[in-house]
């Protein structure tokens, strides 16, 4: 059973085709990595899955229902977190959590906030202004917000970007544990191979808006015969560029001839 089913999803911004006819399904309870270099179309894809960007064409079904026409029902069970999108800096940490708990209609707000602040280790700065938090603390706060509504689907856009390796590692362990405890399906974007290899059950590799490969981390490494995902990343990206180069040269020679 797929939690998310995407078919021929395309988004064109004027001259740029950010996402170019991708199709995929996200199996329940798994962490799926959406992997690709900068500008590959990861953020655009995630924002389309949240109905924040209107697709040019293609379809998105979440929990078996068409996203746009069931937006409210679906988003009740979905959440999102990214270090690029923080909570308002001019509220205290607990105030932010309280506002978003109300927004999601959380039943027992106090208990929920207590549970999550414990889970993500943010109890100590609940009374602080959000603007005073460090990057690592902000990331944990954003994650706590993302779990307020007990999401069945969690979309994480580069969750560990701009964190030092130690904190990034701890965040990944936290996520893995939460996924196992709560059975939540997670779509996790990254351009960091090592982390994706560590945390993901499945990887979708995109480049220039297209899926170039997919599989489990071990499958991909096996297939490309490399030691780690970093090499796979380089091979696929450069292969793509090489193919384009060949096409360009062919075009060019045709024009000349």
């Amino acid at each position, binding site marked *: 059973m797929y939690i998310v089913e995407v078919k021929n999803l395309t*988004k064109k*911004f004027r001259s740029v085709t*950010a996402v170019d006819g991708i199709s995929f399904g996200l199996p329940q309870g798994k962490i799926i990595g959406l992997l690709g270099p900068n500008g590959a179309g990861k953020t*655009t894809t995630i*924002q389309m899955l*949240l*109905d*924040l*960007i*209107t697709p040019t064409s293609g379809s998105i079904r979440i929990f078996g229902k068409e996203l746009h026409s069931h*937006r*409210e*029902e*679906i*988003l*009740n069970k*979905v*959440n*999102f977190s990214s270090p*690029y*999108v*923080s*909570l*308002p*800096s*001019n*509220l*205290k940490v607990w*105030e932010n959590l*309280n*506002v*978003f*708990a*109300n*927004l*999601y*209609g959380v039943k027992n707000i106090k208990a929920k906030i207590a549970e999550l602040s414990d889970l993500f280790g943010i109890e100590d700065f609940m009374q602080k202004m959000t603007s005073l938090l460090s990057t690592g603390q902000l990331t944990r706060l954003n994650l706590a*917000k993302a779990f307020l509504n007990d999401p069945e689907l969690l979309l994480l856009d580069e969750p560990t970007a701009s964190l030092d390796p130690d904190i990034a590692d701890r965040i990944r362990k936290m996520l893995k544990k939460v996924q196992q405890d709560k059975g939540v399906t997670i779509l996790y974007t990254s351009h960091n191979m090592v982390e994706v290899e560590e945390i993901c059950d499945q990887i979708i590799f995109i480049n220039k808006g297209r899926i170039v490969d997919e599989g489990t981390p071990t499958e991909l490494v096996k297939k490309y015969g490399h030691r780690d995902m970093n090499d796979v990343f380089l091979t696929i990206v450069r292969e793509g560029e090489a193919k384009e180069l060949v096409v360009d040269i062919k075009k060019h020679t045709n024009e000349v001839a």
Partner: protein
Amino acid sequence: MKWHRIKALLIRYMYLNKRSLPRLMDIFYWPVLDLLLWGFLSFYLEKLNMGNLNVVTLLLGAIIFWDLLSQSQRAVAVSFLEEVWEKNLLNLFVAPLRISEFLVSTILIGFFRVILVGLVMGSLGLLFYHFNIIGQFGFYLIIFLLNLLIFGWSLGLLIIGFILRFGTSAQIIAFGFMVLIQPFSAVFYPVSALPESLRYIAYILPSTYVFEGMRAVIASSAFPWSQLGLALLTNAIYLVLTCWFFYRMFARIKEKGTIMRLND
């Protein structure tokens, strides 16, 4: 529409304002200063003894009404801008929040601001200048305020529609619009004081009918129902148009994928 989502935005607004001096000043500072300025001016003018014109009532009534219109407009526009400045729109709309719920919350905030500022200006007017706004307008006050409130929403919606369309750099132009309509709204003088060609502009603004109505009540104590009808009619038209405009502009940022880029 879900009350818990509207409540969440009201709580957010309360947290934001309760310890922010600049925000509280935005609500109280200007109205109080306006009241002082126009109060003293009208006292002075009255001493000049120009016929039997009730200068204090005319000018103080006018400035209080104008400030309340401005409060209603700012409540809508500024609550939206706060989310843009803090890049919080995405967090809000990742949640199942509806645009209509967002708008209702800003409208409620506008309502509270108008009541609050109305109370402050009303009491100060009474205290300093013996101007009793409730005694003066009685039941009609509610009808005037309702029209100012609704027109303020429309203006606020227009402004945030512009910001969605052109980004935050458009905010100066957007707020300038408020100042632009003031001369045509016949705030301090009747429409007849305007050159004939400009009166047409005055007559398409709901605010004009409120201020004309206010003067009619002061002059004869009779209520100008036709003015009220026209105020409601133009208000209804603008509210529908500006709501439509805002929804269009919101759909546009979803097309353009710029919900996170309004600050650029």
